[in-house]
């Protein structure tokens, strides 16, 4: 009846895990109780669980990401704590199995449930607005994607309570992740959490490729797309052609574990190396999936806060495409030591180094954009500067690791760990946080607090260096990754410093949550009346904050790369039509949460081999989708009178903030030729409420 699931799965010998469960269940009960007490369930159901609005879906993604940022960070802190306190030859406070679950959980959660949802959340919020669209191409599919991600995250969460999580590392290498060496439910939880979130990401990729290629406002040619839109287009294409490799690798591993096939076993003709190859066929493009949109965010930030056109737009576009292409030809550098000949290794090593060239082009483009610009050191600009310096270092250590000979020495050491944190933290995390601050007022209608934001920035930046420079040292000293204990006493000094770094990062994360709280508390004072708090250059700043459900009352006409800036210069910003028209928008529907719930139960049932439940879930999903396909009444109408009223209110706010005087003063696209005396800082205008 319940497959392999027995009450034993609930029994945890480790007091730390019991404690974690108490916290998790306690927090869950508290949230449910509060929602019930304040009667918020109806509101949540109507406005969030059934919504197909891309802006709300983006918010849900980011909420998921922040929850998993905390969980992933706690895992990392516990790993650091173990290694700092264990001492040479000691036992430490963690068992080897628990330690392995922690580093597996940290990697899995940070990549799949923190970075990816955060990224997709920002894509959801910004892309339709930047291209002048009213929604993504497939709003329902979009909602299914977000709730599938939530379902996958729930599987990770429930593994803490029922059974255990994988101990096989975030990459789950065979044969260790095979049934023989990992007989418990952990690897199965890992497989299905990744599988469901991977399918969700594939659907997102399909959705955004179509949205960007098919839904741009009239006049927005490919070479007039904002840089963030370009990078998301390239990332979405990478998603579509690389995630299926992960899907297949995980599916075949699941078959090996559940029905006894021999794809990746080390006996009966299976090939364990094939898994590793297939995993990295996805895994390397994944690195660029994570990093390219962050590059796009930095481009938006640099142009906005330097009030200049992007330097070398065309070279930036080609560099993005070059990186996307090259990302498919370098996966072997993750396993130089597999045993292929030096010729293969050399070729993949050179291909890897070549990626540094388009990346360098981008770095120079950002620097030249800043050159002779009037840089406003707002928070996103700080993240960008922190990124530039830190990322170049990480890139350098990457070029070093790209040399097969050096990699034979360094691979699987803490040097590697330091390297990929050194690219992913500035390259992805800093970009995400810059975008978080940059687009927050657009979504919520008030700006984020600057002071706590700066605390967060310095916490992350200083913490990063203190935590990861010692890992470079340790790597050179020969310390392998993933050690629950060690016998070299000289390592401990550096590990203690790294742990201190983790504490400083913790302060950065704490400050970010304080920043959100303080900004929400002072939301009246921080209100963004105009929808254009930063003097923006792209279309998302042409509409109110928060935008109405339909985004654009009238679909804008694009005449320049910096579409909104052109409108301001040519004095056609905020133009109103003679007459508004009815707008058709997609209806809310419970289908996404139904599909997500069925997927969650399918994953859970597969983990515990409850085959009847898994079968029912598949049947239920197919039935729900077929039933939905018979429904052609999927849209509702927002009447022109409603649009008119919204716009009247928006224009009243624009007048109140004296925006039109400010726009009259803009004569230039904002570049180095602007005479210094006439320059009006858009930010000082927004805070003082009057033109400068």
């Amino acid at each position: 009846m319940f497959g392999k699931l027995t009450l034993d799965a609930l029994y945890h010998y480790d007091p730390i895990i019991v404690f974690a469960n108490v916290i998790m269940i306690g927090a869950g009960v508290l949230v449910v109780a509060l929602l019930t007490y304040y009667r918020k369930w109806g509101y949540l159901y109507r406005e969030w669980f059934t919504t197909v609005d891309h802006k709300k879906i983006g918010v849900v993604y980011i909420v998921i990401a922040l929850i998993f940022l905390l969980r992933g960070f706690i895992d990392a802190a516990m790993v650091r704590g173990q290694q700092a306190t264990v001492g040479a030859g000691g036992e430490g406070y963690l068992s080897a199995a628990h330690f392995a679950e922690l580093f597996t959980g940290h990697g899995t959660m940070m990549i799949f449930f923190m970075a990816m949802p955060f990224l997709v959340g920002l894509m959801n919020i910004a892309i339709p607005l930047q291209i002048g669209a009213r929604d993504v191409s497939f709003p329902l599919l979009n909602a299914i994607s977000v709730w599938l991600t939530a379902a996958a995250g729930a599987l990770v969460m429930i593994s803490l309570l029922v059974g255990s999580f994988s101990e096989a590392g975030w990459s789950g290498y065979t044969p260790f992740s095979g049934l023989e060496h990992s007989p418990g439910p952990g690897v199965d939880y890992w497989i299905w959490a990744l599988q469901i979130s991977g399918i969700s990401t594939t659907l997102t990729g399909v959705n955004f490729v179509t949205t960007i290629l098919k839904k741009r406002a009239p006049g927005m040619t490919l070479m007039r797309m904002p840089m963030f839109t370009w990078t998301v287009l390239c990332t979405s294409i990478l998603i579509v052609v690389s995630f299926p490799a992960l899907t297949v690798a995980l599916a075949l591993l699941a078959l090996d574990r559940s029905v006894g096939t021999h794809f990746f076993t080390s006996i009966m003709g299976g090939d364990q190396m094939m898994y590793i190859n297939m995993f990295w066929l996805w895994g390397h493009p994944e690195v660029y999936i994570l990093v390219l949109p962050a590059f796009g965010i930095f481009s938006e930030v640099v142009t906005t806060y330097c009030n200049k056109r992007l330097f070398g737009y065309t070279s930036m576009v080609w560099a993005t495409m070059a990186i996307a292409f090259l990302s498919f030809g370098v996966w072997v550098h993750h396993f130089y030591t597999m045993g292929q000949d030096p010729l293969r290794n050399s070729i993949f090593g050179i291909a890897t180094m070549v990626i540094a060239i388009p990346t360098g082009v981008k770095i120079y483009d950002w620097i030249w954009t800043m050159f002779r610009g009037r840089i406003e050191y707002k928070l996103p600009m700080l993240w960008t500067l922190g990124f530039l310096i830190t990322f170049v270092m990480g890139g350098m250590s990457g070029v070093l690791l790209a040399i097969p000979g050096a990699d034979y020495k360094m691979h699987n050491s803490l040097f590697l760990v330091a390297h990929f944190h050194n690219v992913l933290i500035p390259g992805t995390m800093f970009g995400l946080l810059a975008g978080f601050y940059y687009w927050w007022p657009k979504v919520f209608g008030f700006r984020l607090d600057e002071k706590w934001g700066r605390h967060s920035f310095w916490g992350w930046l200083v913490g990063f260096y203190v935590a990861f420079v010692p890992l470079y040292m340790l790597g050179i000293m020969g310390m392998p990754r993933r050690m629950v204990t060690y016998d070299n006493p000289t390592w401990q000094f550096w590990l203690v410093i790294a742990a201190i770094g983790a504490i400083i990062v913790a302060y950065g994360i704490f400050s970010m949550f304080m920043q959100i709280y303080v900004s929400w508390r002072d939301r009246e004072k921080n209100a963004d009346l105009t929808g254009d708090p930063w003097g923006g250059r792209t279309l998302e700043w042409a509409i109110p904050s928060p935008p109405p459900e339909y985004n654009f009352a009238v679909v804008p006409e694009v005449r320049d790369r910096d579409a909104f800036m052109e409108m301001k210069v040519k004095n056609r910003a905020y133009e109103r039509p003679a007459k508004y028209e009815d707008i058709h928008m997609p209806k809310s529907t419970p289908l996404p949460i139904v599909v997500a719930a069925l997927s969650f139960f399918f994953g859970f049932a597969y983990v515990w081999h409850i085959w009847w439940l898994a079968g029912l879930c598949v049947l239920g999903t197919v039935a729900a989708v077929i039933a939905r396909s018979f429904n052609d009444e999927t849209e509702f109408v927002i009447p022109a009178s409603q649009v008119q009223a919204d716009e009247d209110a928006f224009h009243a706010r624009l007048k109140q903030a004296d925006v039109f005087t400010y726009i009259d003063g803009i004569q230039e696209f904002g570049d180095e030729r602007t005479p210094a005396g006439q320059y009006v800082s858009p930010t000082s205008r927004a805070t003082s409420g009057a033109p400068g």
Partner: protein
Amino acid sequence: MASSPSYDLNRVRAAARADTEVNFGFWAYLMSDVVLFSMLFLAYVNLSQRFAGGPTPADIFSLHGVFLETMALLASSLTFGLAMVSLHQGRKNHIIGWLLATAVLGIYFLWHEVSEFVHIIHEGASFTRSGFLSAYFGLVGTHGAHVFFGLIWIATMIAQLAVKGLTPPVASRLARLSLFWHFLDLVWICVFSTVYLPGILAGGSS
């Protein structure tokens, strides 16, 4: 049903265009399916010589059976194409007829494939026997699963044509189903050219 049939037929034909948003989106999904199958082909080629002392392709493949399956699937591509021709002519009953023909051929293909699987497993050559057999069942089985879902989709579309008539949304779905069905035939060409024919060939001359 339609007050102005000629106008409606134009709408129906426009909905079946390849460059509508939703049809292009489905095409993008098919690209991900291309990669999915290419990974399974990769697994098969890598494991195709790993018999672990078990049966080889020549022991289990039958050229006769594969030939019949291939003919059925190829003919079903033609019948589906003729369904799309009928769509552009606005002949609902013709579409249903050609879809039924396609479904019959698809069911024949699938029935043949499943009985072949049952036969092979019955001879002790199941997917747990060797890396080669795992990869064989994984690849061909995934294709078969796609055909199975294609058949469910055909049944759904026949029902929609009967209930709703040839409306633009139905035409749009038929256009995507046609892409899906032709795509399955493309994959099958790769299957018989990579799995069956070389396998039988290697057995025949050694």
